[in-house]
């Protein structure tokens, strides 16, 4: 109240502009050394406020520090807050406080002991770390569990700051023995600390062995601790592989009650433990455990959107392993109109995966629902719904149903102008699935594409154009003005992207008997001389050679062009078995959200830390950048330290390789499935020809290769 009043008065009376910065600091300093405790406390608060606003108040450090010895815990907290904030940027100043830290670590109040040890282990100055040993040892053995739970984390902090010292002091042994602690919260924090150390350096603590030794203890502690401790303990249990079916069953029995915890993260951690142990025990698909998991997963759908997102991404992984799990819960995953967009897209994805392809009623229901989505207005959502329609059609597979889907798509294509790209792709996928026998469907699609004057104005994406050309190449009889259509495509050839260029090449070679020779000649010329895409050029050269071969070239070309393609039976992308297993082990971790196992990251991290010890690469990068800027100002660009110079190089090369690989990977996961289909004609012809291609390793052309890459990841 008092403060409110003060603020009110201040707001009401302030007319002149604020006093200058210097004056403010001066005033604060005066307050900090005031003889009145309340004034000092207020001054500390004001200082911290300035700090929060991002102003540099480090010059007040000595004055603030004078107030640390107070008996008032609140004030002490404030001082510690200040000290912790500057511990990183001004470590040298913290040395001034070391005596207070040491004495506070023996204070009678556990809160003060904690604060002291917590702060001490955060300051990156060797001098302070030297003093840490005794207080840390003492607090690790403290009577109060609240202090012990803080102390065990301090070991991890110390390890991160100075690994050698930490090993020298032998506190790691103390940490390991803390696993035996009677208090579950201490145990949980110990596990967290140990996993942290293990992640940084697996050689110093035998974490898997330790978990194995303490499994029964963890199971006991599970029922008696806070939700966060439960998550940590469950996480540790998920790392443990049960010896036999009996033990696995026991673990499952002990953790399943936690599927009903209100905290979604506890639920997900429990699901992870259960899934880890499921393969060991004999279960049929009707088993109660599946319905328990299923209802736990369903309940995650009434959590906040971010949580739902995590759940959905994980469900996608779990579903591939246990496809029957949620088939009865289709409606839960229906999109709500106020869901955020990222959630809606995930939900559509899950819906198509979830639906039982042997259940006509369910498929029809979903079809109606997806149709409804396709009439919405958010473009990304509609596009996804259209693709989902074709995926559903292919999944259910029965021809009557596919026809129904196609009717919907044709209707959509006519009414929704901006989604012709997606509609065309979806329809072509259906045609690829239905095979060449479905005259009616083919006519339907082709007559639609037939009336499009210029493709440029209708289709935007490379992928859609490529599908359009495939359509022409596959069913040339359905199109009038074939020659003109191809000529227009040819005219814009150089502006197109590689996918379109290649499909045009295939199409024209295939139809070369129906088209005047000049078109073929022009295209081959263009493709060999005016494109930067190596693949397109190589392909053109290859075709050119085949066409100009003497003698049996007709056979060869016929073989090349008229090979029938297998019908596509699945348009949903899947994980490779090894990737799936890894992802199942990493459920609820960030890696499972990106579908990128942790190992892909740590490889690079390890690589980095070899180069630059202690400091982070980024920091060095920033330092180097600042340095460059400074140097530029001094017109002395070339004169900066060798050290940071090499750091930039390392950073740059590392960064770029990483990015390249990331790009490659991103590319490989998403569009490759679809691509592989569109590339199939190409693949086929390649195999038929058994020509030696030099650029086979290029992932753009060779889906198999990229899939191998994917496996690698």
């Amino acid at each position: 109240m008092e403060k409110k009043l003060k603020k009110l008065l201040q707001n009401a009376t302030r007319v002149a502009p604020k006093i200058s910065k210097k004056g403010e600091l001066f005033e604060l300093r005066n307050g900090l050394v005031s003889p009145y405790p309340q004034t000092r406390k207020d001054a500390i608060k004001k200082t911290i406020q300035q700090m929060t606003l991002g102003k540099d108040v480090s010059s007040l450090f000595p004055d603030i520090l004078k107030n640390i010895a107070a008996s008032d815990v609140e004030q002490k907290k404030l001082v510690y807050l200040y000290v912790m904030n500057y511990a990183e940027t001004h470590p040298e100043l913290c040395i001034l406080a070391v005596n207070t830290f040491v004495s506070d670590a023996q204070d009678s109040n556990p809160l003060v002991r904690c604060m002291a040890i917590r702060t001490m282990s955060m300051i990156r100055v060797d001098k302070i770390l030297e003093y840490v040993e005794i207080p840390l040892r003492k607090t690790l053995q403290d009577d109060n569990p609240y202090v012990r739970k803080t102390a065990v984390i301090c070991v991890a902090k110390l390890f991160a700051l100075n690994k050698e010292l930490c090993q020298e002091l032998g506190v790691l042994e103390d940490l390991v023995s803390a696993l035996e602690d009677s208090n579950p919260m201490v145990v949980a924090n110990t596990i967290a600390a140990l996993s942290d150390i293990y992640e940084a350096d697996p050689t110093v603590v035998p974490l898997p062995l330790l978990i194995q030794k303490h499994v029964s203890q963890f199971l006991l502690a599970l029922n008696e601790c806070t939700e966060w401790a439960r998550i940590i303990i469950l996480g540790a249990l998920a790392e443990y592989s049960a010896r036999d079916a009996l033990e696995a069953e026991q673990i499952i029995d002990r953790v399943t009650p936690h599927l009903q915890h209100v905290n979604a993260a506890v639920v997900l951690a429990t699901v992870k433990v259960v899934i880890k142990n499921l393969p060991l025990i004999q279960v049929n698909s009707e088993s109660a455990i599946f319905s328990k998991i299923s209802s736990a997963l369903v309940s995650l759908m009434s959590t906040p959107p971010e949580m739902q997102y995590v759940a959905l991404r994980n469900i996608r992984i779990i579903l591939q392993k246990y496809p029957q799990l949620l088939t009865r819960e289709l409606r839960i995953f229906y999109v709500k109109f106020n869901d955020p967009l990222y959630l809606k897209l995930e939900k559509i994805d899950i819906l198509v995966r979830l639906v039982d392809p042997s259940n006509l009623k369910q498929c029809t229901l979903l079809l109606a629902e997806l149709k409804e989505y396709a009439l919405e207005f958010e473009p990304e959502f509609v596009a996804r719904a259209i693709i989902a329609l074709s995926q559903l059609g292919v999944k259910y597979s029965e021809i009557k149903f596919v026809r129904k889907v196609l009717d919907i798509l044709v209707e959509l294509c006519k009414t929704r102008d901006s989604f012709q790209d997606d509609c065309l792709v979806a329809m072509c996928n259906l045609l690829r699935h239905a095979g060449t026998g479905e005259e009616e469907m083919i006519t339907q699609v082709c007559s639609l594409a037939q009336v499009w004057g210029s493709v440029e104005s209708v289709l935007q994406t490379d992928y859609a154009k490529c599908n359009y050309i495939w359509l022409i190449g596959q069913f040339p009889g359905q199109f009038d003005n074939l020659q003109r259509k191809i000529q227009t495509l040819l005219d814009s050839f150089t502006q197109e992207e590689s996918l379109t260029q290649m499909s045009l090449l295939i199409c024209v070679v295939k139809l070369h008997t129906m088209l005047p020779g000049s078109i073929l000649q022009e295209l081959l010329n263009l493709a060999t001389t005016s494109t930067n895409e190596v693949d397109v050029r190589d392909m053109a050269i290859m075709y050119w050679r085949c066409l100009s071969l003497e003698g049996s070239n007709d056979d060869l070309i016929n073989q090349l062009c008229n090979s029938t393609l297998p019908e596509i039976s699945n348009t949903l992308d899947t994980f490779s078995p090894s990737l799936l297993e890894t992802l199942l082990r990493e459920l609820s971790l960030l890696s499972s959200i990106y579908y990128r196992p942790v190992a892909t990251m740590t490889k690079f991290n390890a690589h980095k830390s070899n180069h630059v010890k202690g400091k982070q690469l980024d920091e060095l990068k920033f330092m180097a950048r600042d340095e460059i800027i400074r140097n530029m100002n001094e017109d002395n660009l070339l004169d900066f330290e060798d050290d940071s110079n090499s750091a930039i190089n390392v950073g740059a090369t590392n960064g770029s390789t990483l990015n390249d690989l990331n790009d490659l990977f991103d590319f490989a996961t998403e569009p490759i499935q679809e691509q592989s289909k569109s590339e199939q004609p190409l693949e086929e012809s390649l195999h038929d020809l058994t020509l030696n291609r030099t650029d086979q390793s290029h992932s753009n052309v060779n889906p198999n290769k990229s899939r191998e890459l994917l496996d690698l990841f």
Partner: protein
Amino acid sequence: MASSIYFCDTKGKTILSRRYRDDVPASAIERFPALLLEAEHESSIIPPCLTHNDVQYLFVQHNDIYVLTMSRSLSVNVAQIFSFLYKLIAVLEEYVKTVEEESIRDNFVIIYELLDEMLDYGIPQITETKMLKQYITQKSFKLIKSAKKSKNVVRPPSQLTKSVSWRPEGIVYKKNEAFLDVVESINMLISANGQVLRSEILGKVRVKSHLSGMPDLKLGLNDKGIFSSDNSADKPGESTGKRANIELEDLKFHQCVRLSKFENEKIITFIPPDGDFELMNYRLSLPIKPLIWCDAKIQVHSQSRIEIHCRAKAQIKKKSTANSVEILIPVPEDADSPKFRYSHGSLKYVPEKNAILWKIKSFTGGKEYSFAAQLGLPSMSDVDVPKVKRPIQVKFQIPYFTTSGIQVRYLKVHEPKLQYQSYPWVRYITESGDDYTIRTA
């Protein structure tokens, strides 16, 4: 494990931050606004996790702020982080009422303190507000009266690390009471032709406990699974009660409930935290008929006018009444000059929502009301603008009634030391969930 927590404003600029580890450089946050902008620029899909330069940005939005954590590792438990961020917001709400930019700026000291207590080195620690309030006693601005300053020094309560970490000892009330609120929210999706596409009941039991000492509570419900632990529940004919026992799905309990006891014996027992808390929630996806049925015929005569005929009916028992019923019917953005004819409630045009809002204060069961509206449309219209399809939204509250039929059979309070008499109170409410919608044709 989180490396840091940031509170950022709508543009992504930092308001307050706490760093727990230095593996993520302090400068990384400066990228956040740009990252958000980039993601927005690319498409409208902005997932709650972004990556830049190997730094993971995980965030939730709340009012006008972003609460953000950063991490460098892919092995961080995202579920835990999001769950924690929401818990953090909930705890802050109890300290400063609404968590928004202004309240954070006003209460930075207490927030720093809380952040230090709730998260250590990025590992979540204690998030139970009742306990935190015992030893984090800084005055916050929104609190009208701060906790009575005791002269003795603040110490962490000893229960903090014990198995009952949510309740301090020595609570005394003159009158020992426990209030139970059974609240059911109905989510329903109805197609334009009146077919129920999806319906679910999200129920929760909220408890307000004013009980002394360390009471042990036992709650009895008319749930199949809970009430009869033997297998007789499988045979529906055997239920002898006047009302058939119902079966709740996806029960979720507050951490005070002994989960293993529930798993084995199907009994809900717990030592409650003091004051308000949510004891349990559940979900039921049984098909239900719309409680408030609503049918709107919307006729668009393009370039001249739009006509809406709407009927609504309360399909509940004659004795029950639905309160504060609100029906929001979307109209095109360029509609104007509304004309209404209606018999009940109040009807108004809400241009900022592009909708007509029909409010009926009390809607008795079995009654049917209707209205007709006409709005003008501009004679010139932009053809390219896609027609936005929005559903009709319905909101209501029905007291003394649960859709699922769940009932509290008993609430037994047992305090081993004090042995007092206590009074449980039970209230039932059914209301609309946040997704009670009817699609328009």
